[in-house]
């Protein structure tokens, strides 16, 4: 049944698919995860701060991000960011940020909302007694958080954080809406140029599947490694 298929097209386009496409996908995933965890943790601390203004602001942000379709966000940011840049820098022209920077900002801000909820659950999983013990030793809020609560919260949440990252890895393909060449975008371009849609999309699906599968296996393994001895 494969008589009419030309799988050689995959072989010929490998360098383009991986050097161009996969590099973009992985870089976007890694940077957005790192940025998202940092901003998400700060948002979680705001939500749990007990200060009404901070709690409301963080909660509003998270709820807004979670109630807007992601594709719309990507699209919207791509057109909006140049104008925000223009406004911030007070320049005469909209700032050219480029597709990658625009995607990175969107994904980071979007993922931050999810990582906020994950870190919030992680922080709440640490008992009051741990905080009391740290306070009783004279630790200030930044020390309690930085050395006692967050390290434990983070370790408890590593599996969930990485699972979210795998989802993010798959979601990066949504950048097609602004015609960016990620892995799927690259595959799609070759597919249309050579008229080999079935081969290329099948190959792309297989690659996403294998990477996600390997990554989730690695998460399960890591989960056992980082678990705190209790």
């Amino acid at each position, binding site marked *: 049944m494969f008589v009419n298929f030309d799988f050689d097209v995959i072989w010929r386009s490998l360098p383009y698919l991986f050097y161009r496409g996969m590099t973009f996908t992985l870089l976007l995933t890694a940077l957005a995860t790192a940025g998202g965890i940092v901003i998400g943790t700060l948002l979680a601390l705001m939500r749990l701060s007990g200060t009404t203004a901070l709690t409301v602001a963080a909660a509003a942000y998270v709820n807004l991000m979670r109630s807007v379709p992601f594709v719309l966000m990507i699209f919207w940011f791509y057109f909006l960011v140049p104008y925000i840049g223009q406004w911030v820098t007070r320049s005469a022209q909209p700032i050219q940020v480029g597709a990658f920077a625009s995607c990175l900002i969107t994904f980071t801000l979007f993922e931050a909302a999810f990582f906020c909820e994950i870190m919030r659950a992680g922080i709440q999983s640490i008992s009051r007694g741990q905080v009391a013990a740290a306070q009783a030793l*004279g630790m200030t809020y930044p020390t309690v958080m930085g050395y006692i609560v967050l390290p434990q919260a983070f370790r408890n949440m590593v599996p969930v954080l990485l699972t979210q990252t795998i989802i993010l890895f798959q979601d990066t393909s949504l950048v097609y809406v602004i015609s960016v060449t990620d892995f799927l975008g690259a595959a799609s371009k070759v597919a249309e140029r050579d008229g080999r849609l079935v081969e290329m999309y099948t190959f792309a699906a297989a690659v996403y599947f294998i990477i996600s599968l390997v990554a989730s296996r690695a998460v399960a393994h890591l989960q056992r490694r980082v678990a705190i*001895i209790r």
Partner: protein
Amino acid sequence: MITIDAISKWYGPTQVLRDCSAAVAKGEVVVVCGPSGSGKSTLIKCVNGLEPFQKGRIDVDGISVGDPKTDLPKLRARIGMVFQHFELFPHLSVLRNLTLPQIKVLGRNPDAARDKAVSLLDRVGLRVHAEKFPGQLSGGQQQRVAIARALAMDPIAMLFDEPTSALDPEMIQEVLDVMVGLAKDGMTMIVVTHEMSFARKVANRVAFMDKGEIVEDAPTADFFGKPRSERAQLFLSKILQH
């Protein structure tokens, strides 16, 4: 050293402490006992400001705990506290549990902190376990580490909140031994406990609490010899049977 003056505390409409007053002089050991829910733990947590209180005044070494201007972390660093559930930091090694607060709170250099930690672990008989994690130790060992961790801060007084209540019976003695040693070295201590043998051995005074009140506060011999209040008599008769 520690004066508690007419403390009252409410959780919403429920009053949990009523007009509690007590004074602990330097080098004195005071045992606080009473039925569960009587406010013992709450009272002791007010002393280092872990629990806020609405009325009254607590002074530790001349510093008012309830004053909003008081630098609470700084004051707490000078008062050691030992908890019912140990509360060692499970993600840090035993040694790191002892050195981290010294380094981060007191600003000690890591070598000095380490030396201090090792000598204290030696004192509680756990030096060989320095590199282990808390989860690898027994309850009694964890509680001894917790005592060492508090001592590493060179506290002027120690608060014990039911330090043996969460322990298996065979581990209680090893923790009490460490506490008796501390008391004999002249440490100022407030100990919430039901271990009356400990009270008899080292306490200067015993305070008995019930329903948020300090019902009786008497020298140890008097308390066990002729408790004046009926509630204390009843409590003692129950607890001393076994």
